[in-house]
């Protein structure tokens, strides 16, 4: 009888030592118990929904009738030839590619400022959180006013400052609509991201700041060499969640520009919703969803490889 050993097998090309693995599983049984609430909810809701929608992506379903005829890979093939899909994907990538970094930077800036001892810290934090809770219809009214061509506030100041010479049509110009929406998106999301950073900043031990001060580092250097690196776990979280949300969001876009002008702000989230719920093509919508999942998954895996998500002292 071999002596069972509790040594962890070497990493690498060695085959899995099953005996060791099972022994570990028994020893760490409570870990699985701790995960069970998630697993139960997942098994009941997510698992079925994922399976069902994946199954649907190979069929056609108009929702109103139970018939779901099998169409094989037709939905996916159609997707690869769909110009509208490519346009919405392009729009979404633009929106995400600019919106996420801008959003993260502005949230980090605000969080850093509001983590220092300023008077009215609580008040300021609350004020910066307010866009997150302002109803979208209300935000839309004010932002539409700001972006208006003839009377809008932004044009007014830009003209006054001489930065532009004739009024810009922010929401009606095919080239300006997306940037306008990106800015509004950043405004809407900063508060929520700020909270993430505020929380993450608290995990950085005070001692490290003190040590840096003693070493003669000034405020900026402390930020670059202590704060930012130690925020890595939070930044990792923010990056992944921002990208996932950005890929799916469409509510504020829809209400501000309705996907126009000329489809330049139609994003993939809206395209999916429209295909499923308005055009009664749930099978096709499911296929779009899975392609989108694949894209996000690949992006996330790339991030995990290149962005350090762990902290080391």
């Amino acid at each position, binding site marked *: 009888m071999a002596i069972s050993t509790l040594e962890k097998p070497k990493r690498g090309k060695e085959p899995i030592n099953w005996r060791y693995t099972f022994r570990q*599983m028994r020893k*760490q049984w409570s*870990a699985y118990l*701790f*995960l069970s*609430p*998630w697993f139960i*909810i997942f098994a*009941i*809701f997510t698992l*079925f*929904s*994922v399976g069902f*929608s994946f199954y*649907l992506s190979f069929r056609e379903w108009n929702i109103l009738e139970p018939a779901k005829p099998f169409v094989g890979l037709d939905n996916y093939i159609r997707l690869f030839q769909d110009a509208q899909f490519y346009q919405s994907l392009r729009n979404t990538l633009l929106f995400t590619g600019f919106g996420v970094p801008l959003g993260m930077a502005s949230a980090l800036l605000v969080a850093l*400022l*509001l*983590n*220092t001892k300023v008077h009215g810290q609580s008040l*300021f*934090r*609350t*004020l*910066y*959180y*307010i866009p997150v*809770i*302002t*109803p979208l219809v*209300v935000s839309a*009214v*004010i*932002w539409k006013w700001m972006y208006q061509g003839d009377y809008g506030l932004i044009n007014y100041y830009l003209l006054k400052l001489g930065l532009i010479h004739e009024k810009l049509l922010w929401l009606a110009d095919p080239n300006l609509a997306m940037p306008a929406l990106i800015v509004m998106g950043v*405004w809407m999301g900063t508060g*929520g991201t700020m*909270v*993430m950073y*505020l*929380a*993450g*900043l*608290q*995990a*950085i*031990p005070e*001692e*490290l700041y003190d040590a840096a001060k003693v070493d003669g580092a000034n405020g900026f250097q402390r930020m670059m060499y202590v704060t930012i690196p*130690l925020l890595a*776990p939070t930044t990792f979280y923010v990056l992944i*969640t921002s990208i*996932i949300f950005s890929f799916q969001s469409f509510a504020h876009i829809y209400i501000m520009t309705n996907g126009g002008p000329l489809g330049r702000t139609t994003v993939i989230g809206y395209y*999916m919703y429209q295909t*499923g719920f308005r055009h009664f093509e749930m099978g096709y919508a*499911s296929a779009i969803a*899975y392609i989108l*999942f694949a894209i*996000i998954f690949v992006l*996330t895996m790339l991030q995990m490889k290149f962005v350090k998500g762990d*902290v080391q*002292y």
Partner: protein
Amino acid sequence: MAVTTQEKKYASAHPDEKAGFSKKIMNLSGQGLVYIILIVGAVLFTAPWVWMISASFQPRGDMFNWPPTWWPEHFTLKNYQNFLDAAGIARWFLNSAIIAFSVVGLQVFFNSLAAYTFAKRNFPGRDAIFIFMLGTLMIPGVVFLIPNYIILQHIPLFGGNNILGQGGHGWLDSLIGLILPSAVSVWGIFFFRQYMKSIPDEMIDAARIDGASEFRIYWQIALPLSGPALAFNAISTFTWNWNDFFWPFLVISNPQLRTVQLGLALYVVKNRTAWDQVMAGSVLATLPVLLIFLIFQKYFIRGISLTGMK
């Protein structure tokens, strides 16, 4: 070298003082700049909300003056009176509160528990399960709406269903149906995990050596040190839940179970929106979330330290 060791010592111990007056000015104007940025930013960020409050005190005829009026010309309380007079308002707030508090309470516990295992425990399949969990976040939510609705409808032994989940309406049209599926959130687990990673391993190992059970380590070490993460989970889950419209809208039909967002949406009729009630109602609807934020943001204070752990 004319500088004596004593001078050197003095220099390193009190760098600011030695620098003198000009540095003080730099400091002051630096601070002033910070305040200016914060105030300008705050104005930009709160403008729509401020307008909403102002509009809620204006009669409908004034609300859409162009350019928008920031100070009510004809101040009126009628909007609030009309809104509060409508039947069932208190019930809406109660329902929203029940759902939001339940979800936050459950999530804070379940999320942190699961996160602890990912952050500080070592068990077979840990990383694979975590990546799998993250993967489930990446599937666009719109494809889940109809399947989840059907599942809720067929939960066995609830809402008139038999053991096979047929015949009744399961968890549809019930508050439980809105609470339990949200009892755990992968976003929350993810955030807690990231936060808990900053807890020094030595602390955990020391406790293990001392013979503490994993649950005790979680409950007495990891969780108390995760105050800010807890606050974050509470704030963001409460906000999201309180403002959630579409899913509760699909699930609930019974007017007794309406949430605040469902109630407000009834005033938004295409081309015939009752703006006066929407404004007044929206102002009232945002207050609870602000309150929760104010309360919990106090917990954004440093908790983890490298020294003095016991």
